[in-house]
């Protein structure tokens, strides 16, 4: 059972564009929603995260929008650069011992120059 659904599977944008990656979750008990960035041959690294008590969070060019009623959250990358080309994973978890991240299937982003 996939509890976090991510789309699109792949995305191509031009430099300066604003790619948007969407995720939907099923379990309303989730209370932590991170986005991880992964470059080829590397492990995932935390990019930005949000908790359900806020609707938006910005860190530099990266913004998470969170819609609790729709059980959806999305990642926006402003002024995208070729160096942003990577695979992005959304995830969700519960804030309790013995739990781990439940990942979406990932989105491969390519930013052309």
């Amino acid at each position, binding site marked *: 059972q996939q509890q976090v659904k991510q789309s699109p599977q792949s995305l191509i944008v031009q430099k300066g564009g604003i790619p948007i990656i969407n995720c939907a979750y099923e379990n309303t008990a989730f209370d932590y929603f991170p986005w991880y960035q992964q470059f080829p*041959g*590397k*492990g*995932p690294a*935390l990019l930005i995260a949000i908790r359900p008590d806020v609707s938006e969070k910005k860190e530099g060019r990266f913004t998470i929008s969170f819609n609790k009623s729709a059980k959806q959250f999305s990642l926006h990358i402003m002024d995208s650069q070729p160096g942003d080309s990577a695979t992005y994973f959304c995830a969700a978890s519960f804030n309790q011992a*013995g739990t781990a991240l439940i990942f979406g299937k990932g989105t491969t982003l390519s930013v052309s120059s």
Partner: protein
Amino acid sequence: NAGVTQTPKFRILKIGQSMTLQCTQDMNHNYMYWYRQDPGMGLKLIYYSVGAGITDKGEVPNGYNVSRSTTEDFPLRLELAAPSQTSVYFCASSFVPGGSEQYFGPGTRLTVT
């Protein structure tokens, strides 16, 4: 700090062979995790540990075993390797459970033929 280190980086196994994937973290994190990543499938939790001497199964534990004798080390054992275990394996650690940043190692790419 080296963070989370994994060895080996690459390995080819024959069907039926066994091996241990090593994972060490130097951040004094109590929580450690093993994930496997298959193309287009995101990351799935194999086993996790909430502290030395305490481990538990994740979503896909069959064919694997773990141990946690120290805070720093969390090895993953594959017994009787099968082609279905061909994957990239990531170890991760976190300071607190669930809703917090997980730090990932660089991964081990395993091929079983």
